């Protein structure tokens, strides 16, 4: 299991994971491994918090998957179904998973941007004023534009520049297939 997945699991444990991450966890090929890691951490957590609950291997991923696939904001809270096992035992993971699902549902609404901003690639800085420090070469004064933050027209405008530049480039630098790859890469949306 890679570190990124572990990070996501850890985030889910703290109810901090975003929708994409949860989806990634759910679609991970080694579900058994993921689940056992999840349970190990939960046991640790229980120990640390002097909780008494044991964690039984229960798979709630199906329900979370369903809730993610649900339309938009109306994520139904999956009711804990009375199952033949003792309900207290699976209490924690189920709640955590449902919380993750809820958080995701919420994330689709207003709070979503904040989650995205945490990703380094999509970093969007608050300072949006024009950097009018002529000649300055420090990256710190440059406001970042998140491509994801652009609306359709703005993206179209920028990608026209990107394309035209890629065309200049295929002429100028003449790198054959690389030039084409740049072109084709622009022609597919960045997200």
């Amino acid at each position, binding site marked *: 299991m890679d570190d990124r997945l572990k990070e996501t699991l850890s985030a889910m444990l703290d109810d901090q994971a975003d929708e994409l991450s949860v989806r990634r966890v759910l679609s991970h090929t080694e579900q058994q491994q993921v689940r056992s890691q999840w349970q190990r951490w939960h046991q640790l957590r229980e120990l640390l918090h002097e909780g008494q609950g044991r964690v039984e291997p229960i798979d709630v991923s199906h329900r979370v998957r369903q809730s993610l696939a649900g339309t938009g904001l109306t994520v139904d809270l999956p009711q804990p179904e009375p199952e033949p096992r003792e309900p207290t035992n699976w209490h924690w993971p189920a709640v955590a998973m449902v919380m993750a699902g809820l958080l995701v549902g919420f994330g689709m609404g207003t709070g979503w941007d904040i989650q995205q901003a945490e990703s380094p690639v999509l970093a969007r800085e608050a300072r949006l004023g024009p950097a009018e420090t002529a000649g*300055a070469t420090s990256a710190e004064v440059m406001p970042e*534009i998140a491509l994801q933050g652009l609306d359709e027209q*703005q993206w179209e405008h920028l990608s026209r520049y990107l394309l035209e530049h890629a065309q*200049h480039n295929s*002429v*100028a630098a003449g790198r054959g297939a690389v*030039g084409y790859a*740049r072109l*084709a890469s622009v*022609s597919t949306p960045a997200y």
Partner: protein
Amino acid sequence: MTGGGLSVWLKAALLGVWVMTAPLAVAETPPSEDARGWLARLGPALNMTTYRGVFVYARGDQVSSMRVAHRYRDGIVEERLVQQDGEGGEIVRKGTRVVCVLPRHGRIQLEQVMPAGPFAETFAHQLVATSEWYQPELLGEDRVAGYSVKVIALQARDGDRYSHRFWLEQQTGLLVKSHVRGEDGRVLESFQFTDLEITDALPDSEFEVQTTGEAVSRTLPSTSEAVVVNRMNGWTLGWQPAGFMPAAAPGSGKGQAVAFSDGLAAFSVFVEPVGALEMPTGVSRIGATTAYMRKLKAGDRTFLVTVVGEIPPETAMRVANSVDIEDAMAFRTKTP
């Protein structure tokens, strides 16, 4: 254990042999001279090699792959590229004639994807001259897509450009892998064949359009017709990084664009009156490609200055900040 001891001795002996022979092998030719020799082969090899394969291209968090077939026969280059991701689509080229079959990708119109310039011809002879701005070095040998390759680094001599690394197939000099690297050595853009077959001949069937869909064809201008377009109407560039010269531009856009290149990297400057569309200002990066946007007031009009290129953000910003509007009235073309 005797077996273990033996292997240790064997390793030591081999190491000894290697230590003795390595300096001899290196001493044959100065590394930079040899690197230049390989670079000189890069351009011609791109055209004159016949090959087919699949390559991946990654910039930032985007990865795409393409299948390519390339044939050089009787002085004519034939090429077919098929996108392996998304909706597919293909580009077929015979000499200067290009046919594109591309579905509408996201928000880009079909005709915009049409490459408007010749391929490797233009710059093939200029790669050697780039050693003024890049330190060439032969790093060694490696293996890519089943072929033995030479690894050549082109280290940027200043902070205004990125460093490059090329993997060239040993027999033909074909570029089979390349990196664009930042100052910290981080790979910003990479291109690499994952499957490659270098051959003498490919059948005609490899170069036929197979995707069904709306096709657009265009005849490329030949190399001699490629003009260095200088459309700096009404504005000037106060600063440009050393070594970047105005480059041939297809002139397909509606805006006032000028392209510059140092032989490896290129950037384009766009200056347009701000229309109804409100664009954010600042810097945006996709892999090695930087887009810097800035608004500029001249008289009572506002202009959007955009610098797009495979250059560091700081350089792009300096270029953008050096744009000066001389004559606001020269901008007659309104952006849609």
